């Protein structure tokens, strides 16, 4: 962890996006008081992380990536125990557990052992554990990793529900679509550093224009490059190693017909043509020089 400088507003879903090993979990664990930072400072929900970690613990919830439930316990037992670990009385803890089970649609399985749950059910129990004491902010480490698409969509809804309850949600993810669809703001992390920060739309806007991918045989690529290099609407041109060109243009939809015409004119045969709207992956690519999918 080197340069991480962040501000997260109350009531937003903030996402940490980055490849595995970028330092997302480490950052989260530091903010959740599990690792002592050796420098820097942080104020979490108004409490100072270094001076008063005990107060931070009271104000935050944390849902680790690898699970946090015990096979032989039931969801209800786990919830009651967890609430009580926050100093909540027994009767209140039981009420809260019942309410959480209801909210996460777990009542039906509440008294079965955790080992009998599906991945999605278990993850919901874990999120319920993280918010049983009504924290101001909850940290979710890769909340959807390992879930099937349906459970994933379900989990997104749950996370949005937390936000509408007024909670600040801090998640880590290595899924681009998740960061894009779910988060109000994101920070892109690589090698322990934040390389970009903003709303998904802002970040994508930084990558001006669209990309047109032209599929060509390796042999035809240099000729095509020559033919298109001078065209006014092409801001930048790159050759693809396996053959083909990547054209950076302002407006992909109008550029495509011109590209087709130009290549046709030059007597070059093209295999395919694709239009790419900028994605967060492109943001990552421009900031780090490699693709998030590859790393």
């Amino acid at each position, binding site marked *: 962890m080197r340069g991480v400088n962040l501000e997260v507003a109350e009531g937003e879903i903030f996402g940490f996006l980055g490849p595995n090993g970028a330092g997302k979990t480490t950052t989260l664990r530091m903010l959740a008081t*599990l690792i002592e930072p050796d420098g820097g400072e942080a104020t979490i929900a108004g409490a100072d992380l270094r001076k008063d970690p005990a107060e931070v613990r009271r104000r935050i919830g944390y849902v680790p990536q690898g699970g946090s*439930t015990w096979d032989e316990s039931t969801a209800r*037992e786990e919830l009651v125990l967890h609430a009580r670990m*926050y*100093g909540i009385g027994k009767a209140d803890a039981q009420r809260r557990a019942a309410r959480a089970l209801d909210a996460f649609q777990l009542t039906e399985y509440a008294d079965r052992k955790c080992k009998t749950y599906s991945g999605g059910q278990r993850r919901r129990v874990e999120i319920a554990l993280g918010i049983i004491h009504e924290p101001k902010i909850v940290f979710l480490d890769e909340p959807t990793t390992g879930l099937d698409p349906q459970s994933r969509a379900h989990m997104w809804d749950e996370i949005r529900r937390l936000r509408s309850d007024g909670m600040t949600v801090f998640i880590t993810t290595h899924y681009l679509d998740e960061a894009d669809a779910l988060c109000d703001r994101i920070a892109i992390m690589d090698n322990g550093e934040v390389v970009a920060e903003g709303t998904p739309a802002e970040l994508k806007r930084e990558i001006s224009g669209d990309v047109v991918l032209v599929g060509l045989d390796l042999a035809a690529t240099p000729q095509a490059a020559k033919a298109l290099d001078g065209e006014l609407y092409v801001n930048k041109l790159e050759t693809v190693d396996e053959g083909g060109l990547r054209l950076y243009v302002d407006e992909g939809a109008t550029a495509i017909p011109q590209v087709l015409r130009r290549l046709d004119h030059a007597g070059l045969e093209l295999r395919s043509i694709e239009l790419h709207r900028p994605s967060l992956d492109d943001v990552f690519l421009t900031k780090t020089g490699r693709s998030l999918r590859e790393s």
Partner: protein
Amino acid sequence: MKFARDTWLIFQRQIQLLLRNPVWVFVGVFQPVMYLLLFAPLLKPALNAPTQAAAYKIFVPGLLVLLAIFGGLFQGFGLIAELRAGVIERSRVTPISRLALLLGRSLRDVVSLVVQAVIITLLALLFDLRVFIGDLLLAYLMLALIALMTSAVSYGVALKVKSEDALAPLMNTVAQPVLLLSGILLPLTFAPGWLQGIADWNPFSWAVDGTRALFAGDLGSDKVWQGLSITAVLAALGVFWAARQFARSVR
């Protein structure tokens, strides 16, 4: 107050999980009973004891200390499973007392050890063992202190090594010389001088001597208070050290 409540909370949970899996009672009692039935009969002639009961008075306390040592030392395995499940991490983000996380678990180990000890004592009664109840309770206190220490140390080591593969050989390596040098299976009365010299440095040897004195009804013996003091100090140190691991450990 908060600390006592937190400890009780963890203890309750651990006991609840323990009772849910009653196999431990069988496992925990089966081995010592085997010793009692299959090994102890050799002792009367071997120890030159006048009666079978006299042999049991020497053997049973040793067996109980053995149980306390081994029962405690291998508790770390359960903790590694909890670490892997994320249960410890989840506990550590709450404001619960770190000492309570340890003590709640160690107290469960102490209680289960004492239950085992009671069962074995009752069985030994069938073999004509007779002990005064006051002495017996003090002996149980000694056992409880030993179990508290060994289980705390085991938890501390488990938090450090984080893997069963490392914990098993480590604990075996520690336990074996401790066992041989404590005169548990055979009293060190017949040991050559150098061996006794080493055994004097083994705290468990003092604990075994103290427990034997109690079983012999020799409450006034120096060995009793010496054994109790040594185990109490070691238990306190063990708990202190392990609680620090709970406060610090990463993952």
